[in-house]
């Protein structure tokens, strides 16, 4: 008899509704998406004698560990099944929050890095890939929409994690003490939600398919019915093309997202409160784009939708200096909001693109290795915007300091477009034999 954590114990009985699975996946993503809102702790922790930059390092470590753990543990995730993985993710992520609380109590910066950055970051990687690959197995007819739902939950995690932390910190009196207690409560709340996801999750039985759905007899060139193992997939040119596609798409978006508040204040002289509103609006666009664009990709194909991201994205970036020249905040907000929908869409569409090319056999593990592109982009994008804007501010009016950055973003998107156009079907010699898959 299988242990209730094993994959075999999570196989759905006949008649199980697949619509019970997305809430389980979203619950886990919604919790680990808290990482996007980590910056709310920067200001209160200044009372510890730590600078905002010191605290920000924990966020960077967590994102780097997200990519690394997803890449390293991807095969284990596929073998162990979603329930064990989600619980492992819960243990790591919530321990990270608890250790962060202890780091504040004991004034130990290294513990913040080890707790939130390393242990919590490992939880992010485990929790990110497992629900996505499970949902794709339940929705072979609409894989883009399925991954969009889960990854939308990750974007939603920031919208919940930020205000939740702020309200809890205010309740506990603010400052480092408030943050310390808020983190304890958050660890408890997130543990409950992640356990809910882990207990609810199910995998489809072998050979299951949605009622009335048959795999297309006319196989589309970029959608395979065969499977490629993770050890082979990452050696193919297709994997590295998609790596560049994701890295460029994320670098272009994350640069704006990370600098949104100072950018709009410098370019349009708006108040800090309005700038905070702009950041909130971008987060909403990021969230909506995850579901919208990945669902569109089911209709027009993954390659087509990435061509839209890159071509439309480049055109929009080129128009940003024009909106600044007109002094139109409204146009600026519309343009950057649209760019951010495609940033979110890029995250949400990539798992379905991988499934199209490599099949569903080890797609979670392949996705895990591809996520290293995100870790790389998390370094490239903000650094590029930060350093260039600082340098430009010394030599030109502050409101024009960002213009050259937008043109560099166009260049990044052009590189992504080339990589996307180079994506071809995977050679049949890489397919695993049916018995293996």
């Amino acid at each position, binding site marked *: 008899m299988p242990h209730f954590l094993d994959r075999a114990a999570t196989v759905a009985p006949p008649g199980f509704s697949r619509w019970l699975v997305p809430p389980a996946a*979203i619950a886990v993503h919604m919790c680990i998406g808290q990482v996007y809102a980590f910056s709310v702790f920067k200001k209160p922790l200044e009372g510890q004698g730590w600078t905002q930059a010191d605290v920000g390092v924990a966020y960077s470590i967590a994102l780097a560990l997200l990519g690394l753990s997803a890449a390293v543990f991807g095969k284990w995730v596929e073998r162990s099944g979603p329930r064990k993985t989600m619980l492992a993710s819960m243990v790591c992520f919530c321990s990270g929050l608890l250790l962060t609380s202890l780091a504040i109590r004991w004034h130990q910066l290294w513990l913040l890095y080890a707790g939130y950055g390393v242990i919590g970051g490992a939880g992010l990687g485990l929790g990110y890939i497992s629900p996505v690959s499970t949902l794709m197995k339940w929705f072979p007819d609409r894989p883009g929409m399925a991954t969009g739902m889960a990854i939308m939950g990750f974007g939603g995690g920031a*919208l*919940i994690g930020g205000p939740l932390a702020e309200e809890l910190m205010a309740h506990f009196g603010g400052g480092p003490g408030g943050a310390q207690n808020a983190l304890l409560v958050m660890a408890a709340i997130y543990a409950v939600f992640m356990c809910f996801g882990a207990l609810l999750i199910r995998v489809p039985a072998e050979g299951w398919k949605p009622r009335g759905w048959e795999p297309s007899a006319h196989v589309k060139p970029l959608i395979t019915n065969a499977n490629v193992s993770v050890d082979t997939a990452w050696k193919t040119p297709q994997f590295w093309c998609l790596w560049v596609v994701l890295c460029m798409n994320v670098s272009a978006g994350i640069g704006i997202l990370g600098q949104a508040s100072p950018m709009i204040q410098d370019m349009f002289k*708006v108040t800090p409160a*309005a700038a905070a509103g702009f950041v*909130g*609006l971008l987060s909403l666009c990021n969230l909506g784009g995850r579901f919208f664009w990945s669902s569109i990709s089911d209709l027009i194909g993954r390659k087509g939708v990435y061509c839209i991201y890159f071509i439309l994205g480049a055109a929009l970036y080129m128009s940003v200096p024009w909106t600044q020249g007109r*002094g139109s905040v409204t146009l600026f907000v519309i343009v950057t909001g649209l760019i951010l929908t495609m940033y979110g869409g890029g995250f949400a569409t990539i798992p379905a693109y991988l499934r199209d090319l490599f099949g569903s056999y080890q797609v979670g593990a392949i996705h895990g290795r591809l996520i290293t592109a995100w870790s790389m982009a998390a370094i490239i994008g903000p650094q590029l915007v930060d350093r260039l804007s600082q340098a430009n501010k010394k030599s030109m009016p502050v*409101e024009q300091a960002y213009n050259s950055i937008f043109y560099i973003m166009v260049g990044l998107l052009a590189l992504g477009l080339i990589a996307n156009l180079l994506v071809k079907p995977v050679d049949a010699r890489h397919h695993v034999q049916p018995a293996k898959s």
Partner: protein
Amino acid sequence: MKSLLTWLLVIVPLGWGITKSVQKSLPLFRADAPPPAAAPK
């Protein structure tokens, strides 16, 4: 019914987060930006 309840468990917190975010973004729409001093002619 079970499906509805499980969906509610994620929709309620998501809805709360979205409402908070919309509230936060309201000052942006009240912003009245002056024309930039050094706009290109």
